[in-house]
């Protein structure tokens, strides 16, 4: 057990690419927590997808022993949090388990929208915040300007900001000292009944569910019988340990400490993040204030390309859901795509991550249908239906009106791109709420419909600002608007998986864009194929894909038979990547690509 005064618990707040993971790596390396030969980049990001995309998805922790300049030995617990807006809920709850934050800002870039969103989580959690200006080794580094920006935009004192190059190691020692001297030690009572926060949990195929805990009061020991206060379940603790960042088993955790326990728990769903853990026999009186469970906001269909792989997909989805309570799924049947799942995600990145993991870790090729949000449909009889899938849109004669989810989007952008950003938001039916300047950067706040953002808004934003804009959002509720279901007909047959909800005023434009895109995406067939967009029975856009004219081998004699047959078999294999609708083969990528708007 560690003396409370010698513990410092902290997280790192940063925008993506501002060097959070590299800084964490440096802190771990500098203190000798990991031997040099075991160092690899982004130590805390354990998933391949995290390393590849350079992002953190799940919160990770590491316990660092540090011999400070005052001669004392300290235990530093770092909780590394995701930077992306989709995983904001992970950030906010991780923040509640620690007392301070390092605010890392790239000194060549400045404050970004995600920095803002995450630093507000830290402020909400009453954190002591130490500003760190990273990448000072780069020529474009401008510490004075960025420090000023931190004060202007965020409103915290940046005079003592530490200047760091996580790359060269400069300022790392100063950072460790600041953690010890600037951040408060945790508080807690050793002899009080056990009160521990369930910070996170995940499934491990060897150990079962691993529960990350922060001890508030009391002591948790191996062999204890514990109670989860919200769901009342009782478990026997069979392991206690800390991350360095590999697991290291210990026998007990005291107040202020962060570590993990295992207790033969089978499913992540049995552990509710934010729950309070106490002893069965001698419980604490009041539980901690829990967290709001995260809600999926983006939905799409996932279907196996090869329909024979449906059971494999079910297996993969159930396994992933074991470890990710924020991801919902239910079986779906599509006339066009057969059996699959309608899945709910926290955002688009979350969707992409889950999809990539299914394709990669379970080797199942997927067709992903157009992402959708939840619409509230108010029926004439006064009832309300939640619509997750445009294909399920009820008959309009029974519908009174529709409401759609809106978000408040905060965008920070260098002023030379401001015009493009305003145009983009305007095109996406946005309502401007605020526009302020901090130096040469503008901060715009827009009220936007989520369905306009869910698909390719972020890609478009990056492209019109050459990557200089940053973006964050929060849900602000539902509002009525004139929304209609737009169907796509290929060769006169509706393709349910291509149906989308659109605003009536924008339906013609979207319809035209979609049929034009589909004309390029669908290969030519032996016959010409009309591609139409329609609202109800009314066609609003049409293209015709002309027939292919020549596809034959000029010479085929006795010696060519074997070779020619192989060629045909290859073509057949290529066709498996397509789905047949009536007599038309549609390539799997078409279901997503058709929706991408180029303007």
């Amino acid at each position, binding site marked *: 057990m560690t003396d409370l005064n010698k513990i410092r618990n902290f997280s790192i707040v940063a925008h993506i690419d501002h060097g959070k993971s590299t800084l964490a790596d440096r802190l771990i390396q500098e203190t000798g927590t990991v031997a040099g030969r075991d160092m690899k980049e982004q130590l805390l990001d354990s998933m391949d997808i995290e390393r590849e995309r350079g992002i953190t998805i799940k919160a990770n922790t590491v316990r660092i022993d540090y011999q400070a300049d005052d001669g004392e030995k300290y235990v530093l617990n770092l909780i590394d949090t995701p930077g992306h807006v989709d995983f904001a809920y992970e950030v906010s709850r991780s923040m509640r388990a620690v007392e301070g934050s390092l605010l890392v800002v790239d000194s060549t870039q400045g404050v970004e929208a995600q920095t803002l969103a995450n630093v507000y989580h830290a402020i909400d959690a009453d954190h002591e915040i130490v500003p760190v200006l990273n990448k000072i080794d780069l020529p474009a580094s401008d510490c004075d300007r960025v420090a000023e920006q931190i004060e202007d935009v965020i409103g915290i004192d940046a005079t003592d900001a530490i200047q760091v190059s996580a790359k060269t190691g400069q300022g790392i020692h100063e950072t460790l000292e600041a953690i010890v001297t600037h951040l408060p030690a945790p508080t807690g009572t050793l002899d009080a009944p056990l009160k521990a926060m369930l910070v996170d949990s995940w499934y491990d195929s060897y150990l079962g569910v691993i529960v990350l805990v922060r001890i508030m009061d009391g002591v948790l020991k191996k062999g204890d019988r514990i109670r989860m206060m919200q769901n009342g379940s009782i478990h026997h603790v069979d392991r206690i340990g800390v991350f360095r960042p590999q697991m290291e088993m210990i026998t007990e955790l005291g107040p202020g400490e962060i570590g993990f326990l295992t207790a033969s728990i089978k499913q992540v769903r049995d552990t509710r993040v934010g729950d309070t853990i106490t002893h069965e026999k001698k419980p604490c009186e009041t539980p901690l204030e829990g967290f709001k469970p995260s809600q999926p906001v983006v939905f799409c269909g996932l279907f196996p390309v090869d329909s024979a792989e449906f059971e494999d997909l079910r297996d993969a989805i159930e396994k992933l859901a074991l470890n990710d309570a924020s991801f919902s799924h239910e079986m779906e049947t599509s006339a066009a795509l057969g059996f699959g799942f309608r899945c709910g995600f926290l955002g688009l990145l979350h969707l992409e991550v889950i999809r990539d993991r299914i394709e990669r870790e379970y080797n199942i090729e997927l067709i992903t249908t157009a992402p959708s949000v939840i619409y509230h449909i108010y029926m004439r009889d006064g009832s309300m239906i939640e619509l997750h899938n445009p294909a399920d849109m009820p008959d309009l004669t029974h519908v009174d009106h529709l409401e759609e989810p809106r978000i408040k989007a905060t965008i920070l952008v260098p002023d030379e791109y401001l015009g493009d950003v305003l145009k983009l938001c305007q095109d996406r039916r946005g309502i401007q709420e605020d526009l302020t300047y901090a130096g040469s950067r503008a901060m715009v706040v827009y009220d936007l419909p989520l369905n306009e953002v869910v698909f390719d808004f972020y890609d478009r934003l990056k492209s019109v600002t050459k990557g200089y804009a940053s973006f964050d959002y929060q849900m602000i509720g539902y509002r009525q608007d004139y929304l209609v279901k737009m169907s796509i007909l290929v060769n006169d047959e509706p393709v349910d998986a291509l149906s989308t909800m659109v605003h009536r005023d924008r339906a013609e434009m979207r319809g035209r864009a979609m049929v034009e895109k589909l004309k390029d995406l669908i290969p030519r067939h032996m016959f010409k194929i009309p591609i139409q967009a329609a609202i109800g029975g009314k066609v609003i856009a049409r293209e015709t894909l002309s027939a292919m*004219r020549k596809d034959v081998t000029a*010479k085929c004699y006795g010696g060519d038979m074997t070779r020619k047959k192989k060629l*045909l078999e290859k073509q057949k294999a290529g066709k498996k990547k397509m789905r047949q609708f009536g007599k038309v083969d549609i390539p799997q990528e078409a279901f997503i690509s058709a929706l991408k708007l180029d303007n």
Partner: protein
Amino acid sequence: MPSPNWSRAVLPDDWQQGGFGLYLHWPFCQAKCPYCDFNSHVAQHIDQTRWLNAYLAEIDRYAAQTRGRILTSVFFGGGTPSLMDPDVVAAIIARIKSHWPTANDFEITLEANPTSVEAGRFSGYAQAGVSRVSMGIQSLNNRDLQKLGRRHTVEEAYKAFDIARNHFDRVSFDLIYARQDQTLPEWKRELTQALDLAIDHLSLYQLTIEQGTAFGDRYAIGKLRGLPADSLAADMYDATQDICGAAGLSAYEVSNHAKDGAESRHNLIYWRYGDFIGIGPGAHGRLTQNGIRYATDTVHNPAIWLAQAEEHGGELSRTAIDPVDQAGEYLMMGLRLSEGIDTDRYAALAGEGLDPQSLQHLQDIGMIEALGRRIQTTPKGRLLLNAVLETLLAG
């Protein structure tokens, strides 16, 4: 209990519906043409006696396996078989005739280049028993002949054609079209000129860029320009059907046109999915033995094949073809012919008929026609044969 295949075993061998031929490959050319992906080699010295003995040994070997069969045809292909000594050709034909009884319309074709040197050997070939020559004229335009790497001129080709006409009952020639920078009116003119010759058979191939050829290499680096787009190539194909049809040489296969009765008997064996022996480097065969149809092949390298043929036989491998795959091959080859395929024959091989929905769809969009037991591709369908086959085989 008889096995499910029992009923198939008592049917007459399927190959009998396509005939029985012998293909003999002469692998040498004087120069390699830039578009050609056939197994051809340029050699300084060729010991024709040694080659003759190897061919004879192979003929003897296959004869022992096919006793009692009636031979439909022989085809000397290449390479350039018109580089063979007429005495060698004569000895081969004599040996073949000594082994197999021949059909009433027995045909012996030899591929020939239209140079004056080769035309000088035509009378020798005719005396040896060759009844049909197939000449690689390729173009009636000297500029394009040069581009195609041919070693003859149009004038030479005309002379060689006249000589051939005097020596052989049947003469065919090849033209390559949809060439670089060729226009539709140019091709129409050239084809009309070709049809003015006293001709009863024409092979008209659209230029295909094959990997591993000089054209293929140039194409891969973007240096082969002026190739027609598919729409122009399709227009040229359509014009070809019209012009040849009007001249009485309608297409009996994707790229082959003939007056009635002048079709290549030998090539019909391939398309009607008969049996054929393949002798020589790179030659393939289909051979039915005890009710099982085999695919045979050989090594491509001429020197290695020669040594193997002398030592223990030139066959590299013999692989049994599953009846379902045989059905696929029959379909793939048979639908090239305007006469089409016999659906009962297909079903007997495949164990089931073609998917009725796919057939109906292909009829609806004008790709095939069904006439009783037969299905045939339309001219439009023949030009899209790969897509048609894909639909039928996927069904």
